[in-house]
């Protein structure tokens, strides 16, 4: 059974291994340059010297100026995000539908190998290949991008690549061990949908849709609550006011936002301005903010005794989040595999 699984998977395995080798070479070549840039920038030792702001900024500007580095950083994150879904669509969905459509399962199921074993070997070997592919890719890209990721985690390091840190959904799913969980889940999802839909192309489309929906649900509605977030309350500093919106006339709703004051690298879930009574501040906008100077308006806000409430996940929880998320998707993959075994025992095929 192992032989047949390998024989059927061989061509795809060779293509993927070749692609991984090409990517490895490309990353090794450009990664050496990036690592050199990082070493000479002095970011690594900046905390001891206390000049992280300057050197991280300089380093990020250099990365930004180098078209190869900048585009590779973004492309590698995109690549790692699409690899799991590609695995689900091209390895998972056709794995059994192909056999159903061609009727070859009837040949395979009448050799001296039970169909449970047939399924176990298929799911096990190709599932492991899927996880290995995603894991290797994550390892290579993580190594390549580590200088940039490290600089990004510093307070002033964001300069140049926008307001992102490693909790940003796209980046979170493209680093560490989460790609392994995604790949296992996408593969099992593809196989399961294939088994129940029984036709390859609709199963591929369904895999794409369900996987994307699962990832979006996880990133925006589940992941923030996996661990109870921390809350930081600090006095509202009118001097640090970085955003103010008002309606068109005095008395209309008004919002003010202070710069966030949480440890570097934290994942900020919400930044609210609250009144002394504990409600979210919503105005009303005073006359002075329409007719007076900016200073007068700011001074008015300063007299309101507002406080800033930041809800966040500290950077130290990064690997806990990685672990939880990977475990959740691996558990989902196992549950889906269980559904496949249930189906194969029920013999609903012929």
């Amino acid at each position, binding site marked *: *059974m*192992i*032989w*047949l699984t390998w*024989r*059927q998977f061989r061509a795809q395995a060779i293509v993927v291994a070749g692609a991984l080798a090409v990517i490895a070479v490309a990353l090794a070549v450009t990664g050496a340059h990036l690592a050199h840039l990082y070493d000479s920038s002095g970011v690594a030792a900046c905390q001891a010297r206390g000049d992280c702001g300057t050197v991280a900024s300089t380093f990020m500007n250099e990365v930004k100026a180098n078209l190869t580095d900048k585009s590779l950083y973004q492309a590698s994150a995109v690549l790692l995000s699409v690899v799991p879904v590609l695995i689900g669509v091209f390895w998972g969905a056709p794995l059994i539908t192909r056999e159903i459509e*061609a*009727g*070859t399962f*009837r*040949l*395979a*199921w*009448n*050799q*001296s*190998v*039970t*169909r449970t*074993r047939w399924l176990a070997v298929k799911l096990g070997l190709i599932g492991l290949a899927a996880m290995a592919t995603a894991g290797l890719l994550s390892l290579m890209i993580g190594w390549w991008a580590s200088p940039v990721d490290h600089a990004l985690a510093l307070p002033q390091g964001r300069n140049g690549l926008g307001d992102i840190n490693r909790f940003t959904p796209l980046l979170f799913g493209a680093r560490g061990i989460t790609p392994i969980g995604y790949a296992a889940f996408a593969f099992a999802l593809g196989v399961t949908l294939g088994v129940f839909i029984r036709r390859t192309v609709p199963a591929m489309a369904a895999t794409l849709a369900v996987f994307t929906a699962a990832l979006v649900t996880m990133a925006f509605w589940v992941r923030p609550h996996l661990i109870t977030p921390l809350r930081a309350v600090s006095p509202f500093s009118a001097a640090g006011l970085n955003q103010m919106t008002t309606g068109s006339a005095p008395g209309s709703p008004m919002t003010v936002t202070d710069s966030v004051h949480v440890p570097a690298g934290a994942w900020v879930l919400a930044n609210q301005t609250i009144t002394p009574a504990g409600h979210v501040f919503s105005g009303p906008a005073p006359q002075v903010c329409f007719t007076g100077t900016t200073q007068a308006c700011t001074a008015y806000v300063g007299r309101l005794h507002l406080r800033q409430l930041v809800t966040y996940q500290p950077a130290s929880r990064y690997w806990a989040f990685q672990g939880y998320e990977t475990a959740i998707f691996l558990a989902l993959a196992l549950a889906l595999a269980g559904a496949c075994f249930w189906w194969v025992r*029920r*013999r609903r*095929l*012929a």
Partner: protein
Amino acid sequence: MTAVLESRGLGKRYRQRQALADCTLSVPAGHVVGLVGPNGAGKTTLLNLATGLLAPTTGTIEILGGVPAASPAQLARVGFVAQDAPTYAGLSVADHLRLGAHMNPGWDAAVARGRIDRLGLDYAQRAGKLSGGQRAQLALTLAIAKRPELLILDEPIASLDPLARREFLQSLMEFTAGGGVSVIMSSHLMADLERVCDYLIVLVASRVRLAGEVEDLLATHHLLTGPRRDPASWPAGWQIISVSHTDRQTTLLVRTASPIDDPAWAVEEVGLEDLALAYMSHAPDPAPGSAPALEVQR
């Protein structure tokens, strides 16, 4: 000796349709069994139940005394060529033999290679590029080389041209010539079955209409022609399979164990094809000896 196929009250229901109902059979070992019936009668359903590809809705089925496909050992005892002889289009002939060798502990490589050589198949050829007859032969090779005690074939020859059909049946007869093996094959080509089968099962409208050794069936069925008479005067032991009348004459296909001694009847032996066709084209009798539900005016 254990029956190769033993079923009791076997039935399979799909959502809307009863594909097989109340099928009770006991097929002794050592036969080449022909399974015939009109399209949709349940032949494929019965064979899929026998190979374990389907699970019964009601009743039980045992193959060689075991539950179909329950274990590797049970699977090893049964060879199966499914309808349209599925093979892996992307794998070569040699790959298929490797597949068989890897997946069957009892694999007989010499038999497999011998068959492929005799058939003149190219080992490097992909199965997808083989002709229908060659593909059927490849599938049969896989099923034979695992050295099964029972070979099940679902419409193996329906799509083949006459020459390929003859070669296929020859291969089949070589397989059975060794003895100790049984074959169950479905077909709607009676003429071909007549040449190889010594046991016949007729399925009509999802039910078993007839099952028995060909020799016995031919000995107990008679085609009678005689003057038209009141059916009440026919002997009680007669099972009337089909009846047709002209103004003065009656033609009957009768099943009876006792000899026909009434000189008023002209007795003819009946061929297997006519026998099966008579069962297939007439609705079942409510009870033996009573008048058939359908009479044909000629």
